[in-house]
């Protein structure tokens, strides 16, 4: 591996958006300032994160450390391949989400708070990505809970409050579990560093390892919405659309999935996981989640809950892939972080645009919408086809590698499971497309023009889905990073998976 | 004596009586401390004609003296508070005060 370099940028990346958040809250009562700040920060941060890419590709690891919270446990950032990949995804999507949100939230109350916390959320996400140790990761993980809460509660009202309470109960209990697990890791290994691949490898107390595994996977599993820990997600759909997009495509659920990846690859390490065999149980749970969530999604009448259930199903792809413990599957797990994010955010943007344009939220109201909002529905089509797994779209790549990985692991059953899942996906996405493009509306409702600032991000994200699909080697999203992360986790050097 | 005071403090509802209980306890402790200084056959620790080589330890007396000062100031404060309670609520029976608040 390359050199470790002291560098300000890992800290700068989360800091940019945190400062932006502070400024928005201070001077954001002026719409112009607010919009300017809200746009400047993601662009700046985008630059900072991408500027670390060449170095990271050359094998350099950037790190920076602040005060020690406990003896031997610093508050520190460290950029490795996996973290940088996650940060790239989130900072790219942040630009799109901000542009969209500026248009979507126009004229609504409480924008100052909204954009402040919006920026803070992304700040914490990058913090999670760059965390050097489990403690730093946990800090940002909890901060993310705290920051998304006001966003979720933005619209107020009884239903929203109930959803907010449920969200907190779930995520904070998860947080407590992680904390307990962390405590045990510290007790067993004497370190929480995420820099190695397997800090627990020297521990041979089975019950303790099992306890750590259960606590950490259950803790992160709450945000990754593994069944049966998923119930907060569908009810969290009461939030404004950009929040749902951010929560479900970028920040919260991905933080959970990312945490799981860290636990499997960096805390336990692949070798120890293979030896212990706990991953098979996790894989089975994830497999069940994929199918069950899809079945529930089939029965949804409204668009947003449908998206939520689809998210639950898609996230378990990542978990399943990670639990297979083979290089190809690991690639699938990591790139699905990006694939699912881009496709799902496209869908959310489209749904939000439809809601803004026509006021419609139910699936059976969508007859003929494809002709009224061609751009938006085009994007919707691309993203949903990607989820079904049509070749040349992003989702296909995931499934390809995942199937490879499953075969590698000798778990051919999962290939069949993927096929069933693709079928189920087709069963709930295709009827929507059919309605949108092939049914005449009974009474053509007037369509309000939707701002370009909402349509453009939708389109860009859809294009990204295509690029990710055709150009696995294309420079748009550096899959090379995913590969180098996998090589590190599996202790391989120079062998392409 | 200590227990008598504690009993009064716990059982009586009248604040003044509680305070008296407290004072009885204090006296008990002071008396105890003074006896610890007692030495068999010792003389008062005052130098003068006819005093032997064995003295009663003077330290406890100093302690108790300070203790009494503290106790007096506390009693004074408590009495002032009780007067204020009487003025505000018209009673100094604790159970009545608690009932009045509900």
């Amino acid at each position, binding site marked *: 591996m390359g050199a470790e370099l002291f560098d300000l940028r890992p800290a700068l990346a989360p800091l940019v958006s945190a400062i932006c958040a502070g400024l928005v809250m201070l001077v954001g009562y002026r719409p112009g300032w607010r919009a300017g700040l809200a746009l400047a920060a993601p662009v700046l941060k985008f630059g900072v994160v991408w500027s670390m890419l060449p170095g990271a590709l050359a094998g350099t690891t950037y790190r920076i450390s602040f005060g020690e919270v406990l003896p031997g446990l610093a508050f520190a950032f460290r950029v490795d391949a996996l973290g940088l990949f996650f940060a790239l995804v989130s900072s790219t999507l942040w630009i799109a989400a901000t542009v969209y949100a500026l248009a979507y939230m126009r004229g609504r109350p409480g924008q100052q708070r909204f954009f402040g916390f919006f920026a803070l959320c992304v700040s914490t996400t990058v913090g999670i990505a760059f965390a050097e140790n489990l403690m730093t990761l946990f800090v940002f993980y909890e901060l993310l809970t705290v920051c998304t809460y006001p966003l979720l509660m933005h619209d107020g009202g009884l239903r929203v409050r109930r959803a907010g309470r449920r969200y907190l109960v779930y995520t904070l209990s998860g947080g407590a579990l992680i904390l307990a697990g962390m405590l045990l890791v510290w007790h067993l290994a004497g370190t929480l560093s995420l820099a190695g691949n397997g800090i627990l490898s020297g521990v041979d107390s089975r019950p303790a390892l099992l306890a750590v595994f259960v606590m950490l996977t259950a803790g992160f599993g709450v945000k990754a919405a593994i069944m049966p820990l998923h119930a907060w997600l569908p009810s969290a759909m009461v939030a404004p659309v950009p929040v749902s997009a951010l929560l479900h495509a970028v920040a919260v659920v991905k933080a959970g999935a990312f945490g799981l990846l860290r636990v499997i690859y960096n805390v336990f390490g692949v070798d120890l996981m293979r030896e212990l065999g706990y991953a098979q149980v996790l894989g089975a749970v994830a497999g069940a989640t994929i199918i069950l969530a899809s079945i529930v999604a089939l029965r949804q009448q409204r668009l947003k809950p449908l998206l939520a259930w689809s998210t639950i199903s898609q996230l378990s792809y990542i978990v399943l892939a990670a639990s297979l413990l083979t290089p190809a599957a690991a690639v699938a797990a990591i790139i699905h972080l990006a694939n699912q994010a881009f496709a799902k955010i496209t869908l959310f943007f489209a749904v939000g645009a439809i809601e803004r344009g026509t006021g419609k939220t139910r699936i059976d109201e969508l007859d003929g919408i494809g002709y009224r909002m061609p751009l938006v529905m085009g994007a919707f089509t691309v993203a949903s086809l990607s989820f079904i797994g049509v070749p040349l779209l992003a989702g296909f790549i995931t499934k390809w590698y995942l199937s490879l990985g499953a075969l590698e692991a000798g778990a051919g059953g999962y290939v069949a499971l993927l096929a069933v899942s693709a079928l189920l996906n087709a069963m709930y996405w295709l009827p929507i497309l059919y309605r949108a493009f092939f049914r005449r509306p009974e009474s053509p409702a007037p369509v309000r023009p939707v701002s370009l600032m909402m349509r453009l991000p939708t389109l860009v994200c859809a294009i990204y889905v295509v690029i990710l699909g055709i150009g696995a080697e294309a420079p748009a999203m550096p899959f090379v990073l995913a590969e180098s992360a996998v090589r590190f986790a599996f202790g391989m050097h120079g062998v392409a998976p | 004596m200590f227990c008598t005071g504690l009993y009064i403090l716990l059982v009586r509802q009248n604040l003044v009586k509680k305070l008296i209980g407290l004072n009885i306890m204090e006296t008990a402790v002071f008396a105890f401390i003074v006896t610890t200084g007692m030495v068999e056959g010792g003389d008062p620790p005052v130098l003068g004609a006819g005093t032997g080589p064995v003295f009663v330890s003077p330290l406890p007396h100093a*302690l108790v003296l300070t203790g009494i000062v503290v106790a007096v100031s506390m009693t004074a404060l408590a009495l002032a508070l009780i007067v204020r309670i009487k003025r505000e609520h018209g009673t100094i029976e604790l159970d009545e005060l608690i009932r009045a608040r509900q």
Partner: protein
Amino acid sequence: MVPLVFLLPLAAAALLPALFGARPRLAWYAALAVALATTVAAAVVAGALPAAGELRYAVGGWAAPLGIELRFDRIAAVTVAFGAVTALAITFSRTLTDSVPRPVLFYTLVLVNLGGLNGFALAADLFNLFVFMELLSVSAYALVAATRQPGAALAAIKYLLPGAVSSLLVLFAIGVLFALTGSLNMADVGARLAGVEAPAAVALALGALTVGFLVKAALFPLHFWLPDAHSAAPGPVSALLSALVVKVGVLGLLRTFELFGAAAGPGLLRLETLLTVLGAVAVVAGAVAAVVQHELKRMLAYSTVSNIGYIVLGLGLATTASVAGSIAHVFYHGLTKAGLFLAAAALVDRTGLHDIDDLRGLGHRMPWSATALSAGMIAVAGVPPTAGFVGKWQIALGALEGGRPLPVTVLLVTVVLGGALLALAYGIRVINALFFRAPTHHRVVAAREAPLSMLVPLVVLIGLALSAGLSGAAVIEFVRPVAEAFVGR
């Protein structure tokens, strides 16, 4: 330098009414300056500690064990926090003069309290320990009753009676110890206790001291006086009481253990078990009680009960990690709780409303105070890297390290984490009410943000509480020798 730490506030307290009797504003400046100077003095001495180990100072030149001796050790370094919090509380009470009948006397009492606190931390002999304890207790009783608010006097007397009994218990124990050893100097008593052949009497003294200090520390179930006193007192006084004065019980407990270290082996072990159990119960009971409270300040008071539980639990677990965590938590909880009470006082005083439900929507009227309160709530729950985290983490670690049977370990860790979760639960209730509910009370709609003299101290304290975790390693390392001495008896 050492005697300055407690002499400065006491001397100033004596002069304050004489010099500025009729001029509260000047008295405010003077009191603030004195508190700050005291803090600086304490900080200078504390800064010299790592090099010197322990600073001793014989008052009037008489050597120990006969003379009066002061000792500035690592535990006494907490006087820096005492001074700083007091200074901030005085700053905060600049505009309090409207509700306090005699502001100059108020400042005087605050300074007496500070002198008592610092003296208590410094005292090297038992009797001075007692005198300073009484000094700070009596001033605390008086401070509770310092407002015109009805019920304050009642709360004060309810605070005074158990307080006085606990003081008597301590005095009684001191008497017993003197009878046994013939000395009052703590180091001397400790050394001589080892040779005393009267286990019953030693146990009696130990028990009386422990119970006495536990009442002062308000450990559940001896906490009954605390919620009334802390919620009825004026804002800055609540901050002082909850952040500093209860900690005297903890310090006393530490000194007690130090004292008996050499003497009572098995008795002390039983006591540790008792402390562990009581501490664990207090953590949960205090947090549960806080969750169901309606009044903001009362909720904070119960939160203190819960946090004292943590500290005592950590002492009871008696591992280096947990004891260091407990001592760090004394310091950290002081910062956080002082900030919380000041923020709560700002909200409550500006609106005159006490119930959390009445304060709904105030976050939009008083954004700074409300944000500080919310952030403090998160800090007190112990979300890393805030101040609450370090202590709780160390205490949980101590529970793991103790080598106890598995179910006990699991239970203890669950208690530590569960207490933190409950703390989040009541914190979120407050945040919800302040920011996410529509105002229900007309006074909330009319409320204005607190003046700068109130905002500065509370923002400073909460800012410290939020970022304090980053210095956790330094604090833990600083108190580690104390913890090692404590455990290695």
